Structures are given as C-alpha cells and as structure tokens.
C-alpha cells in the first residue's frame, strides 16, 4: 500500500540527508509502528507518505514513494487527500473549522462528495469515535483526548485507505490514549485501513502493531520485522520488554497478559527474596524528612502534624475560571526532598494547580503558600528564588538566539554569578554547543536547557508540567537521573504527568486529581497499584507483589 524505494531526504541547508536509503513496504490493512529515538527522521518519513515532504517542507527527496500506486513526486498532497489521512503531533494545528461536525465534514467537502454520503459518514464516524455528544461543540472547548479523536475522525470521513499518525497518544492521559488506540485497532480490523504511526510511548502501542519499523539511530538503515524480534534488539523498548529481556523470556512478550503468563517463575524467585530486599518505593528516601503525609479526607480531619514546615502548603484552595471550577478545595503539602506526581485526566486541573503555585493564577478562595510566601503577591524576582516552573512547552521560556545568550540572561535574571546557568547545563547534559539556536535543540535538550535556566535561581521547589512529552526513553532516563539528584539535594519536585512509568520510576507520592479535586493522595506504590489505569506495566505483570519498575527488579535479583 505504501512503498518507499531507496528514499533519502535532504533538507535545504542541512549537512547531510535526514533519512537515507529507506526501503519499506507497508501491506494493505496492516498497522505498522515506526519506532526509534528522537531526531532520526521519523516525522520526515511520515510526511513523505502524504507528500508534505518535500512538497510543503522543501528539501530534496531522492528515490520514490508511492501510495496506492500514486507517486508522490507527481501528486501533490491535495491530490493524495482521498487516499491518505494525516494527523500531526498537535491536533490544534490541524483544525480548519470551529465545530466538531463541520470539522468531520471538511475533508469530504474538499473532495466533493455528495451531501447524503457526507451526512451518513459523519454520523458513522461520530459513533465510531464516541463523539456523538460533542457534535455541536466548538473544538476549542474540548479536552486534549477529545481533540485528538476529532482530528482522527476528520481524516477518517473521506475513507482514506492509509492513515498516517505522528505521536497520536503523547498528549493524552492513559485512558484517553487507550480509547484512541482501540479506535485505530477497529479501523484496521473492520475497515482494512493501513496505518503507519510513530510513537515514543511504546508501552501504549506496541501490542497493537503488526510490524515494527525501527530506525535505531540517525543515518542507520531501517529495520523492519515482527514486533517481538525487533524489540529484542531495539535501543528503545517498553518496560514489559525490559522485564522480558531481564528474565530471558522467549518468545519476548509484548503484552502484559503474555508477560503474566510467562512470569510465574520470576514471581516465585522474587517472593523468595529475603525481606530486606523487598521492594521499597523510595529508592532515594527524602533526606531527613518526615514520611510523606497521607491526607485523610472527610470530616474531622486534623491538619497533618509535622515538625517541619512544609515547603508547599495549600489549604482549601479553589480556583474558578469563569463558570468553571478548575480547582475545588485542594489540600496539598509537599516537603523538601519529596517528588510528587499530579495525575489525572486531561482537564482535571493539574496545570491550574501548578500555575497557582507559581502565582500565575490567583486563588479564588483558600490559600497557597510556597516557602512561607504567597506566590501571586510575590514579585517575579522574589518568586524565582522560591519556585521554578518548567512549562509544558519549554520553548516558551526561551527567548534568546543562542544557548550562551540564554544562559547569560538567566544569570542576570537570577542575580547569579556569571556562568552559573552554563555550568548547570553542562552538568545536566554535556555536549550542548554555546552557539546553537534554542529552536534547533531536540525536545530533550530544550527541556534540559529550560530546567537549567529555572535552576539558576536555585529555587527549593521545582514544578514540571508534562516533562516527558515527546521525549524518547534515553532522554527520559537522563531526566530521571537529574531529578533524583535534585531531590537528594533537598529540592521538592512536583510534576504533572500522564506518564505512569515515569511516576513509578521517580516519585515518592502521587496525587490524583479529578474535576479539580484531589481524589487520592499517598505513597506511589499504594496509589498506582490500586488502579489499573495508573499502574505501570511491571506492577501489572508482577501483581500481587508490589514491584514498580524494571530497575527495582534488576537490583533485587542482582
């Protein structure tokens, strides 16, 4: 269905080709997953299928790409619109109209389908994607998962034979991601649609793939094969594969279910371990701090007594935005050295809570104190010494032309000694050149730069909003190491995340928000193992034992 013949793409002004010598054939009705670390050209390959590369992006494409027999060299993207549907990383950049129903119809209108056909397909698609209740809603008022489903629906209605998706689940909470993936699976099974998608969060998608195409590193040849065979050697792999490799399971299981069936002997070995090696959630316990307070909710709740003044304290914090109550009576305390994850579905109020803690949002009622101060009353200069936030889009923080200028500006903003920020950056991630434009950095590098800028003022409290969005496993591992060191040095870290694996690996405590209220707050193992949608893969495989990550298991077995 999709055929790449010896394809190389070179962008204008680039040193060499971004992808080189790609030969790939995706048969009709298959779901192929494109895997690999960041920056190896996955998005370029996906763009070449719809013809956007090179017709829209510029650059030179050598070789030949054909989709359903049409050569992208002679067919512009708009002439491929009836066979290829493309959804990019950011669904908001995809929408042309303003309501759900119009958006679903837009592609068909462009193709000139008759009105009765359009009407029927819109109704079918609304049902297929569970959007019927949202049909008249303005798109801007939908949550991230709903927007992603609308974006997929909008390319489905013209009945394309090929669907190309770039990170369809990276911005979604676990439940919404499952929703989107099950829709994709239905399309493949029921309609015979061919799907090619790239995704960093392999733990979410690998089980759905018929084949995996792996780009192991920039410039290396593409390897295509059965998911289990590819995963056995891939540099990027989900925890279930990590555990399988550790335990030497053959064939390598890709789903939690298959892994559980193979895991009997491993569970026996682990349960026979002496008790002191039993899993402890706090690999780096908070230095000289009281154990994380578990909030007791309900009447008669007394304030948690603690010898220490917590770094962050919110009491009855509520925030209203117009008619929406974004937060309702949130009580949260975080002590120095603690790492807390805020989880919950898109729109649950995680970002609002973080914004309140840095004073971007004023509490409607209740109080939020950070290091004894009221964040929204503090001047920006005072504030950065108390709390730093790395926003969802780290690029927002960056405003200079070069990394060096960015670091110098950060030193000046924080009144730090010149070179402080640069030294921090080199510590966190060596090898970023001074003269690079921040825009040219990879996602992981950009995040690290933003982190270094925020840390220049040495705030005791660090807030991160979706830090692992768009990061590959290597970048994530580095981030985990960096944050652990910061926590060991006494920084309190609060992060909003959808990434259950990250929460399991890194955090001491998880607070789950729903509709602006804290519905659960407690030590990470207790919270994540008690709910299937927040449980990491290892916990699911080794339940009822409470292991959370591959590295825990590895350490215990060593």
């Amino acid at each position, binding site marked *: 269905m999709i055929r790449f013949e010896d394809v190389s793409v070179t962008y204008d002004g680039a040193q060499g080709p971004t992808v080189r010598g790609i030969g790939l054939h995706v048969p009709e009705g298959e779901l192929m997953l494109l895997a690999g670390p960041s920056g190896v050209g996955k998005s370029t390959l996906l763009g070449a299928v719809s*013809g956007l590369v090179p017709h*829209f992006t510029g650059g030179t494409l050598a070789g030949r790409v054909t989709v359903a027999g049409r050569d992208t060299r002679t067919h512009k993207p708009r002439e491929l*619109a009836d066979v290829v549907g*493309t959804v990019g990383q950011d669904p908001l950049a995809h929408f042309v109209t303003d309501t759900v129903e119009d958006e679903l119809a837009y592609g068909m209108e462009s193709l000139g389908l008759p*009105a009765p056909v359009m009407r029927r397909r819109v109704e079918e698609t609304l049902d297929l994607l569970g959007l019927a209740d949202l049909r008249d809603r303005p798109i801007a008022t939908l949550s991230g998962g709903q927007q992603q489903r609308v974006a997929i629906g909008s390319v489905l209605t013209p009945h394309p034979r090929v669907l190309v998706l770039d990170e369809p689940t990276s911005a979604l909470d676990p439940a919404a991601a499952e929703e989107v993936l099950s829709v994709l699976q239905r399309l493949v099974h029921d309609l015979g649609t061919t799907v090619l998608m790239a995704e960093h969060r392999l733990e979410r998608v690998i089980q759905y793939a018929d084949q995996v195409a792996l780009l192991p590193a920039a410039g290396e040849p593409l390897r295509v094969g059965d998911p289990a065979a590819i995963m056995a050697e891939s540099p990027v792999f989900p925890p279930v594969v990590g555990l399988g490799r550790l335990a030497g399971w053959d064939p390598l299981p890709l789903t939690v279910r298959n892994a559980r069936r193979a895991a009997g002997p491993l569970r026996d070995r682990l349960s026979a371990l002496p008790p002191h090696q039993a899993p402890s959630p706090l690999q780096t316990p908070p230095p000289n701090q009281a154990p994380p307070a578990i909030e007791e909710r309900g009447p008669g709740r007394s304030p948690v007594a603690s010898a220490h003044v917590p770094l962050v304290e919110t009491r009855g914090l509520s925030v209203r935005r117009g008619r929406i109550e974004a937060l309702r009576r949130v009580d949260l305390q975080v002590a120095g050295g603690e790492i807390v994850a805020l989880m919950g579905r898109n729109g649950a*109020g995680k970002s609002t809570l973080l914004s309140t803690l840095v004073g971007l949002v004023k509490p409607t009622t209740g109080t939020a104190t950070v290091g004894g101060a009221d964040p929204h009353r503090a001047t920006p200069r005072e504030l950065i010494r108390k709390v730093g936030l790395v*926003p969802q889009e780290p690029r927002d923080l960056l405003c200079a032309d070069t990394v060096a200028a960015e670091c110098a500006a950060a030193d000046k903003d924080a009144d730090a000694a010149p070179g402080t920020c640069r030294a921090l950056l080199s510590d966190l991630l060596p090898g970023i050149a001074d003269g690079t434009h921040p825009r040219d950095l990879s996602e992981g590098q950009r995040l690290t730069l933003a982190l270094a800028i925020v840390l220049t003022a040495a705030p005791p409290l660090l807030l991160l909003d979706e830090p692992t969005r768009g990061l590959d496993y290597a970048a994530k591992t580095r981030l985990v190491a960096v944050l652990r060191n910061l926590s060991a040095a006494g920084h309190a870290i609060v992060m909003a995340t959808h990434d259950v694996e990250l929460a399991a690996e890194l955090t001491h405590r998880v607070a789950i928000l729903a509709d602006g209220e804290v519905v659960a707050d407690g030590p990470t193992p207790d919270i994540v193992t008690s709910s299937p949608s927040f449980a990491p893969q290892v916990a699911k495989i080794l339940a009822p034992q409470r292991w959370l990550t591959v590295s825990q298991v590895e350490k215990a077995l060593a």
Partner: protein
Amino acid sequence: MAVSSLRAPRAHRSNAVHPGAWWIWALGLGTAASRTTNPLLLALLIGVAGYVVAARRTEAPWARSYGAFVKLGLAVIGIRLVFAVFLGSPIPGTHLVVTLPEVPLPDWAQGVRIGGRVTLEGLVFAFYDGLKLATLLICVGAANALASPSRLLKSLPGALYEAGVAVVVAMTFAPNLIADVRRLRAARRLRGRPDSGLRGLLQVGLPVLEGALERSVSLAAAMDARGYGRTAEVPPAVRRATAALTLGGLIGVCAGTYGLLASSGAGYGLPVLLAGVAAALGGLWLGGRRTVRTRYRPDVWGVRAWLVAASGAAAAAVMVWSGGQDPAALQPPVVPLAMPQLPLWPAAGILLGLLPAFVTPAPHPPTKPTEAAS
C-alpha cells in the same frame, strides 16, 4: 393545543436559523439606529439587541465577541464626549458647565478650537451622537454573537469559498495571538522578569509572531493534506470566458458607479452598473465550476429565518417611515434643552425586533466545557 408546543424548540443543527437572517435582522436594527438620535429610542434598540443576544446566544467562542462590542460602544461614547469637551462643539449653548483655558491658535487654524467654553447642550449633543454610533456597533456585535461566521461563509458562491476560508482562518488568528501573548507573558514571570507594562508586552512580540507564523504554516500543511484547493478540470474556453466575464464585470461596476456619482453620466451609469454586476455574477458562476467542493448541511432558509429577517426589516421600515412623518421626535433638539419624548410608533416598531427571542430555537442550557488545555 398544549402551550409547550407553542414554545420555540431546542436548537440543533438542522433547525439553526440561517446566519444571513441574523445579519439582516441586525442590520435592520442598525438602520433604525442610524435614523434617530433620540436617546430613549436608542436605549430601547440596545435593550432589544441585548435581550435577543442574552436569550439566544450559545457558548461558542464567536458568541463572546458581544461583550467586546459593548465595551467598544462605551469607548466610542467616551471618546466623543472627550472630544466635545476639549475641541468644543458647534452647538450654541447657554448652559455653561465649565470654561477651560483656551489655547491660542494662529490665524490659519481658524475654525479649530482647543479648550474654551463647554456647554451642557454641546455635551448632550455629543452624547446623543456617540450613543447612536455605539448602538450601531452593538447591533453588529449582536449579529456576530448570534451567527457563526463560518456558517455564513457556507452561503457564499463556490468560487469565493476558498478565499472565504482564508479569511475565516485569518480571523481565528486574533484569539490565538492573544492566547500566545498571555502564555509568553506568563513565561516572562517564570524567568523573574516583570510581566506587566508595555515593555514586557513588546518583548514578547517577536516570539508571538514567530509562533503565529509557525502555526499558520502547519495549518496550511494540514489543509493541503486534507484536499484544500483541489480543482476540477475545465475546458480552456470556459476558463477564458470566466476571466473575461469577471474582469469585464468589475470594469463595468467601476464605470457604472462613476457614472452614477458624476453629475454628467447619470444616464448611462445605471445600465452599465447593472451590466457589470451581471457579468461579474456570471464570472463567479462559471468560476464555481472549477471547484469540486460540496456543502455539508448548509443552513436552510425556513419560516423562522423569514420571521427573523422580517422583524429586523420591519423595525427599520417603521423608523424610516416615521422619520418622514415626525422628524422632530426622532431628532430631539438640544437647543433649547428638553427632556426627549418617547414617540409611540417608532418604539413599537423597535419592539418588533424582539421577535427572534421567541421564534428561534433556544440553545441548550450551558454545559460545563472541559478545559481545552490541561
């Protein structure tokens, strides 16, 4: 017959009132406003427009623009009054409010005055005038709040549709830009820099424009990939005829308009103008054959749309008619100062404009929208 069956139905897509009807209604009210300076009638018009908006607007983003138009109207009144105070007013008045120091101006600036006497008559006249303009703005705002701009676009002829999409996309840019400015100012605060003041705003200017450019490029890519701009093959003869008709039509429109406006050419002006319009329409119709687009559920012009449009037109007609009958009631004199009277017939005509609040489908009670960005 049960009373409930007389009430307006719940709104959904199929019974939505044609956006053109809303615009005719609003322009009708606007025409009525332009015919009077009577503050009571103008207030009544604002009340009618406001009531209909309150009763029938949805939670959609475009519906929020009404508040902006109201604020703009207030600003217009304010500016008009400030001008009247500082630049004087041509209205002769006897009720002195205050005498400002007058700036002496050279001879060549005769007729211009800065400072000087401020009379109550002048202020009242300026207020009436400003209120008229504000009412016009509020009527336009009401149309904006009630009719979705993109649905209006669907009623355009095929040849203009694609240009129209570009316009709508451009219009959605303003809210996006504002969101960007907010986000980047927040980011400045996170870096410990002052986030308020003009300087802060200027420094986020460049990143905001960069972001806007990036977004427009990715939107263009998405639109292209979804078939925007697909054309059908048409014979070259048709293409040439389209070009000739459109160009000739436009020239005809220009020449005809000139003829109508110039004193000498009144004889040939009208026929040339009409011929030009006809040719241009023909060009558009032929041009529409190149586009392959079809339309999904275009709004139908039904009985309710007729009622909405007719109520606006009736309000305008009554006002124009009574302007001929009793001009003094519509333009209350400010010299000498007198309490304006509420003339019966024009007021009744304006109240006809309330009809849409009862006959158009009622929107659903507001649901709790999920936050777009978590």
